[in-house]
């Protein structure tokens, strides 16, 4: 913390790291909700994800802002404007993990939402018997290829 009580860059990075991990947890929760067709859980998880994402975007903006000019610290490593290497490494690892999970989440959403969109259009324009061309096996294969 700075003297004025404003979180330093390390503190913000720590919050950023924690949010990355929480968001990963929420994505896993959302995927489980999709697997169980638990719509209320999915809706709740997406709300949490939205809040976390908004905060993460704000923090990323703050952390990417130019350094303020001020007294030079005795030790550059201990400067409140400098993110620790170890912290930076953890942020990168968490970011990569989140990104890997995001690809899976994206693929699951894409194929699940495609099913939902199909059903929705079915309701909107239904005039006769409908049979979906691609079965679960084909959909599974498509999804696996994308992975």
């Amino acid at each position, binding site marked *: 913390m700075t003297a004025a009580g404003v979180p330093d*860059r390390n503190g913000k990075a720590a919050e950023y790291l924690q949010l*990355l991990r929480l968001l990963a947890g929420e*994505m*896993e929760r*959302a*995927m*489980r909700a*999709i*697997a*169980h*067709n638990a*719509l209320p859980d*999915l*809706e709740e998880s*997406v709300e949490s*994800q*939205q809040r976390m*994402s908004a905060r*993460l*975007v704000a923090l*990323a903006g703050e*952390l*990417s*802002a130019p*350094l303020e000019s001020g007294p030079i610290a005795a030790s550059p490593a201990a400067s409140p404007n400098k*993110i620790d290497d170890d912290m*930076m490494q953890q*942020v*990168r690892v968490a*970011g990569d*993990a*989140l*990104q*890997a*999970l*995001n690809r*899976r*989440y*994206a*693929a*699951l*959403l*894409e*194929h*699940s*939402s495609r*099913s*939902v969109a199909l*059903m*929705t259009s*079915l*309701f909107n324009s239904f005039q*006769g018997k*409908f049979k*979906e061309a691609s*079965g*679960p096996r084909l*959909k*599974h294969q498509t*999804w696996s290829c994308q992975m």
Partner: protein
Amino acid sequence: MGGLNAALLIGVSGLGAAQGALDATSNNIANVNTPGYTREEAQLAENGQSESGGQITGGGVMLEGLKSIRDELLNMQIQRQTSMQSAADTESASLQQAQSYFTLTGTDIGSALSSLSSSLAELSGNSTSSSAQQGVLAAGQNLATAFNTTASGLTSVQTAANQQIPNTVSQINALSAQIAQLNGQLAQMPAGQDGGTVQDQLDQAVQKLAGLTNISVTQTNNGETITTGSGTPLVEGDQSYNLQTSTGTGGQLEVLDSNGNNVTASITGGTLGGALNIANTVIPGLMTQLNTLASQFATAFNAAQAGGTDSNGNAGAAFFTGTANLSTAAADMSAGLTSASQIAISSSGASGGNGNVANLSAALTTALPSGASAAGGYASIVFNVGTAASNASTQSTAIGDNLTQLTTQQGAVSAVNIDEETANLMRYQTAYEAASRIVSTVQVLNNATLNMGSGSSF
């Protein structure tokens, strides 16, 4: 990354489950206007938990199969009510036809009795008038004809019901065979496979069967076991048992089970129950009343005629004949006199007087052995027919209202609710769109995270 792999596997199982739900939903929509269709739901079950590195994770979800949403108790009530309504409808239609022979048409028995009374009154005032004498003879002939017509009408109603009985038994046998076949199809289906369509066909066939006769349906491991009211099996698993008809010792039609046992008494519902009731109970009952009236009136009138002397000086011959056999009195009744001069007008033992006309008239108004006068006895028959027809019609209407209510309840349970399904789909769509925005945001965040490590601003 164990958590991520677990999520991946969960996601895969979720896709299969979602596909099952999609199949069920699309099938529901496709059949939204199909009569008798029962909506289906995907039956999902949780996969077993797995342990990895001491951490227990869920195994996702699996699709067990599709299940038709039915309320068996409701179906049973509908079957019973359908059976009762069919019986009431059959009886109502027959009784309305029978009732037409008892309405005031001018040629009915009531009108003929009234005409005979009027003609006797005219003869009493002018006993030598040949036209008055002719009037009495004609009125008597008309009365006999009216009895003949009414008896013939009731017989035709009974004949129609008798023709309906073997036809209905044939339909019952055909439906039983169809149900047995569907039972067999259901039994051969692998566990988890959707039997909804076959089950719907089965339900519809059972519903039709309930309209033909009263049945009892029991669910067994081999499918549905269907019996008649007495417990005689019609269907057991994939085996059906035929009913048959035969003529009983009294000439009435009987229904026999596949072993030749008479099960007529236990068949009280459906078209068959209604037709049996009309043919074997209602019409014979009315016919007995009609025959009794014809016989007793003819006997009383003939007795009055016998007590007088006709215009030729002879003792009065029987005015009405053909009523000796009580079981065919109304049908066989005829005027025995061939000439108006044979009417026994005089009571003095010689022609010329009119003293016996009063006795003839009294035969119309005096109580017969049944306890009522001829007109009173006839009114009683009319009342019985009218009441029976009205009761059958009222019962049919009441059961119809009840059936409508039950069918509405069944619809709430089994029918596809497009609005509900649409609302859920819209929610799903919105949720997926919102989730997709998170995916885009995380993609941007990843770039920001990379910049954190390489940017000079850090």
